[in-house]
């Protein structure tokens, strides 16, 4: 064995572990009986823990420097490590939260675990992509697994319809993204993101090349917007969130968003920062539309999953505010603050989204889906503790201190104000007020109304503890946000 080559490729160790682990699990699971499936889940958690250990090792060994390996196809930097760790947390939590839910519905099959792990592998490849090729590879691996996961409950018409919609629109968006990439390849002659960055600065000064690049950029932004899920590329979100089993909605709504954020940073910030003036305007439009439509449409929803779907759209719009505040008139002083605010927002959003869907899963039981607003009525009577957790989650989503959601909003708004986008900040603030209404309505249902037929089924396997930790984390990050903010800042500075 060539040890030098092994050490050179060490930054890809987490991906290697995950790939081996996922393949091994796929085979081993064939011999595991349904009632022993918990062994597969435990093994998956072990794989995740090994991945996390490997990532931490790479993080420590690299000492904050950026490494390009596989002939410039794969990048290992602090942003990647942070996002990967976030994804492990999300996937691990998803496994814990959803075990009993899936078991009660006969969906706890080996495919679930395998697909989830391959989906995670796709995300990790996306996060570490240094080339259009790797990026697309990771994106497709992730998306294909997600389509299959949405259709996990194959006898449900709602699920299969959602999966079909997701697949058709997802394929379309991949096509758009590829088309845009091909334009940029045509202009710069390279697929490597860092080389593209070197070329665009020069090309952007010639009007004809600039037009050509912007033409490609439009499609790239559209592709990103679809994966992040912002208006007007949001159509799939409510249907997929609603149609998929809640355990899968939890997955769709968390880690893939982080991967999509990574994609946006890799393509726009690492690759096309010289076109920032152009894509910032596009993002501004997307952001305002998303905040408006997301928040307004969420009010009208009676289904919790649909409501959270629209709330996601609004939150992603808010997150974009940070991304579009980096470059001010060609000046890049604000870059670190702005992009790190988006990153912080993303991580906090992931925690909130995990928790919110986690509560829905926790309250569902055999033959009962907790998915309508009505279903939360009087939760404070039935279970004050989980009502309190949901209260923290809702106030965090609404951005009320002292929860982490407030600092996420604060950081992004601060970046926008620093960039001179005061009116955009005011618009964001007004829409987040509108947004506060529907989160408040959930608190109202839980605390002020009498319970209808809500009863807690006994839950085992640590889901309750994980959920409590998840909710309290938002309170802890709300009281002491500095460590996470500092991590985000240093990750962005290492780009």
């Amino acid at each position, binding site marked *: 064995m060539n040890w030098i080559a092994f050490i050179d490729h060490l930054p890809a160790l987490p991906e290697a572990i995950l790939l081996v682990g996922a393949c091994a699990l796929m085979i081993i699971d064939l011999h595991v009986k349904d009632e022993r499936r918990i062994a597969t889940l435990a093994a998956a958690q072990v794989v995740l823990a090994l991945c996390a250990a490997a990532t931490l090792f790479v993080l420590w060994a690299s000492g904050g420097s950026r490494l390009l390996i596989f002939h410039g196809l794969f990048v290992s930097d602090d942003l990647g490590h942070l996002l990967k760790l976030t994804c492990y947390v999300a996937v691990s939590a998803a496994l814990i939260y959803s075990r009993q839910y899936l078991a009660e519905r006969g969906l706890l099959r080996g495919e679930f675990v395998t697909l989830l792990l391959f989906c995670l592998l796709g995300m990790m490849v996306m996060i570490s992509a240094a080339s259009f090729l790797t990026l697309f590879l990771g994106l497709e691996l992730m998306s294909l697994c997600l389509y299959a996961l949405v259709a996990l409950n194959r006898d449900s018409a709602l699920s299969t319809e959602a999966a079909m919609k997701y697949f058709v629109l997802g394929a379309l968006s991949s096509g758009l993204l590829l088309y845009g990439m091909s334009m940029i390849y045509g202009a710069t002659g390279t697929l490597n993101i860092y080389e593209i960055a070197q070329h665009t600065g020069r090309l952007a000064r010639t009007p004809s090349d600039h037009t050509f690049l912007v033409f490609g950029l439009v499609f790239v932004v559209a592709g990103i917007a679809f994966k992040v899920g912002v208006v007007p590329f949001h159509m799939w979100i409510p249907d997929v969130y609603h149609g998929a089993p809640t355990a899968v909605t939890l997955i769709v709504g968390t880690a893939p968003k982080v991967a999509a954020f990574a994609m946006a940073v890799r393509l726009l910030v690492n690759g096309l920062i010289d076109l920032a003036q152009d894509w910032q305007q596009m993002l501004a439009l997307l952001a305002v539309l998303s905040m408006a439509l997301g928040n307004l449409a969420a009010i009208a929803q009676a289904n919790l999953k649909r409501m959270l779907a629209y709330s996601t759209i609004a939150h992603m719009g808010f997150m974009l505010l940070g991304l579009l505040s980096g470059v001010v008139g060609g000046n890049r002083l604000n870059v670190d603050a702005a992009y790190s605010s988006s990153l912080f927002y993303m991580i906090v959003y992931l925690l909130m989204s995990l928790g919110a869907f986690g509560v829905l899963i926790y309250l569902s039981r055999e033959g009962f889906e907790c998915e309508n607003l009505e279903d939360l009525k009087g939760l404070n009577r039935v279970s*004050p503790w989980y009502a309190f957790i949901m209260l923290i989650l809702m106030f965090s989503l609404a951005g*009320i201190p*002292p929860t982490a959601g407030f600092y996420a909003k*604060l950081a992004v708004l*601060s970046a926008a104000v620093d960039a001179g986008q005061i009116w955009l900040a005011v618009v964001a*603030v007004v829409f987040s007020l509108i947004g506060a209404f529907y989160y408040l309505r959930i608190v109202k249902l839980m605390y002020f109304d009498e319970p209808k037929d809500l009863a807690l089924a006994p839950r085992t396997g640590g889901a309750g503890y994980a959920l409590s930790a998840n909710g309290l984390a938002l309170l802890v990050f709300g009281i002491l946000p500095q460590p996470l903010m500092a991590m985000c800042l240093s990750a962005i500075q290492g780009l």
Partner: protein
Amino acid sequence: MLLSLAIWIPIAAGVVVLALGGDQRAPLQRWIALVASAMGFLVTIPLYTGFQLNDPGFQFEEKWLWIERFSVFYHLGVDGISLLFVLLNSFITILVVLAGWSVVDNRVGQYYGSFLIMSGLLNGVFSALDALLFYVFFEGTLIPMFIIIGIWGGPNRVYAAVKFFLYTLFGSLLMLVALLYLYNKSGGSFSISDWHKLPIPLRAQILLFFGFLFAFAVKVPMWPVHTWLPDAHTEAPTGGSVVLAAILLKLGAYGFVRFTLPILPDASKHLAWLMIALSLVAIAYIGLVTLVQTDMKRLIAYSSISHMGFVTLGFFVFNAYGIEGGLVQMISHGFVSAALFLCVGVLYDRMHTRMIGDYGGVVNTMPKFAAFTMLFAMANAGLPATSGFVGEFMVIMGAMKANFWLAFVAASTLVLGAAYTLWMYKRVIFGAVANKEVGALKDLNPREFAVLAALAVATLFMGVYPLPFTEVMHASVNELLRHISAPKL
């Protein structure tokens, strides 16, 4: 250290009370709440006794780096302006705990937990010297108040709670943008004293002024954004109304003296006419509206708006009488409105109605209660030798210095205030016994007596000998006036 204790003792106790869980532990929860609120008050007393009267700056300061990324400090301190509010808040908390003692028997832990946490947060608002810390406390109070109104309130509580929350959130979100703008202009500092020195052009000052105005005007509340208050007050449980009237309304007015006047003096002068006009509308028009209320709590709520109009009027005439008068009026209103809401609470606990028409001749069955209510009604009307007189008189003096007609309109409150308060008093307390429920009323129990007696002593003491209250303000108010007079364009 004292200020941190004043903030964190109630919050820690609130968490403990919440953690104790269900109603089977209610007696323990009540006692913990009482002990914690008493301790919270005790730690604020050294703030008063150790206060340096000649020092216009902040005292009892504590400063720790909190969020390095935004250079936010956990920076506390009080000056002559904020000191009394910390004391008032800690004092009122004890009364609130006592007021709910035997009345609240449903989800007791959550009730006391919410009140204690809110009390700590309110102390935080009054002692925060870092704008972001201020904002966190300011907004944080919304959550417990929302829960208090929504769970233990009257029949229309949900509507009132949501309205209260969204109204105040709207104001404070715009303030957040203003705070971030100042943070950006000051080169990355959230320190309020840094902002006092920051030069800002007039156009920006005016925009910022409106950013702050919405937040504070909603909280005060000023006409025409006052409409949430009658609903919130009416539907809140007695303790909730007391905290709302005595403390929460003071946040807005406090914001004006802490942020708007010193940071935006030029815009404040430029737009003083607007503020004075809104204040006079509140005093005169809301005074008239108060007259026709049929619900006792609603009546007191409207009278609060009218009295708070006095406060904002005093602030925007820019002289020592006006500003000190406004501050004194805030303290006095804290005592008097709290007392009046407690009085209504006493009746409501017995009769379960707040309508004036359901009462009459209460004096026949509740003589002690009638005597206390008389005192507080007089104080609300601004009778000399009660605390209500001192503040109103000072503000009218201040307004007189600025313009005779201002003082003239403002003084109309003395007539209107007497009219609505005493008319309500007459209809509820005097006359023949209206019905057999009133005939069966029992007079004050020792607990209620003690609570009302404490407030009666405070009201009378402040009316007869206001010096202990005003002398702590002088240095800080003069410093504030010096700030306002120096343009900082």
